[in-house]
């Protein structure tokens, strides 16, 4: 009995020390992490508009957050963040959409996919497949029904990851329809 209490107390001390350390580390890094994430998002937002935008504006419409890119006061594109359920967790995707409603470029913000397989969603050959596609063309080719025109090639042995990105992009295009006339 005495031994049991001794064990429990020592385990408690270690766990309290560990959680104290973790809380400290979390607190002292949280604001920097948030800042990094936001800066990365702004940077990527410019990227998915293919560098056409000189100015990026953050917008808000009924709780939907998105970015608008302008060049010399003219709208060059809208950037929307969505996510799809990947193999190891959500895959956050940033889609740049032109005023014609077609994808300019996409970028992967974060993912937890299997190294070497699902991580290939972040390669340019996969992402470039989405360029100039509209809502009808962003489904995976293997998910198409006969008669559908165009699709995306999935990554070998990473269908779930590929499908997650394709779903996220089509969600972004659907959200774009809701916000495209917002000024």
């Amino acid at each position: 009995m005495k031994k049991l209490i001794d064990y429990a107390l020592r385990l408690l001390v270690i766990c309290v020390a560990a959680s104290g350390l973790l809380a400290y580390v979390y607190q002292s890094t949280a604001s920097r992490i948030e800042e990094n994430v936001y800066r990365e998002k702004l940077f990527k937002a410019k990227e998915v508009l293919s560098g056409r935008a000189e100015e990026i504006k953050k917008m808000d419409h009924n709780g939907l957050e998105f970015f608008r890119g302008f060049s010399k006061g003219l709208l060059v594109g809208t950037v929307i963040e969505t996510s799809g359920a990947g193999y190891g967790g959500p895959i956050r995707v940033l889609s740049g959409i032109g005023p014609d409603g077609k994808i300019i470029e996409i970028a992967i913000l974060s993912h937890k996919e299997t190294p070497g397989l699902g991580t290939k969603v972040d390669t340019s050959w996969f992402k470039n497949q989405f360029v100039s596609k509209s809502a009808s063309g962003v489904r995976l080719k293997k998910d198409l029904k006969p008669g559908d025109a165009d699709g995306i090639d999935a990554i070998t042995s990473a269908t779930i990851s590929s499908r997650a990105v394709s779903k996220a992009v089509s969600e972004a295009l659907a959200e774009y329809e809701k916000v495209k006339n917002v000024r």
Partner: protein
Amino acid sequence: MSDKLKYLFNVLGNGILRENPILRLMIGLCPTLAVSTSLSNSIGMGLAVTFVLICSNFTISLIRPFVPAGVRIPIFIVVISTFVTTVDYVMMAYFPALHASLGVFVPLIVVNCIILGRAEAFAYKNDILPAVLDGLGMGAGFLLSISVMGSIREILGNGTLLGMSVFGPSFNPITLMILPPGAFMVIGFLMSALNIATKKGAK
């Protein structure tokens, strides 16, 4: 060379060949098989594991007198996961570029049984300096074997090494090699090669 120095040197070299964690002790196989699809992935995982291994061996050797045998395993796990989470946060805050390329490996380190294995088999029974050297040696052994595996699999399975083409465009890569069956084949060949090589030396 004094006896003490000889012993420390021995501890350091142990993990690289005689007790190579992957090819000899056969621990830490799951991350090895999963991550060794390319050389750059292997190096990333190898470095991250080595770092955590040195730090966890150090910490466990340090708190050794306070840890009773009956609850040592839960305490080891708390120490290791605290450490991995700290590394993850610090990397995210101060080295976002590094985190972007290594981030996927960090959560995998917690379940790497080399770290728990060395905590249990070595750090819990030894002083701080040998424990740190054991971490370094085991980490180096892990890095070495996973990099060899990664190179073989990337060259055969993708026709590249570190992303650069090896055989030119006419090479038709054996995709099987970067899929799980390829991992099992390569590790089997490597283990038998090492066994043959060391048996000859013993005769």
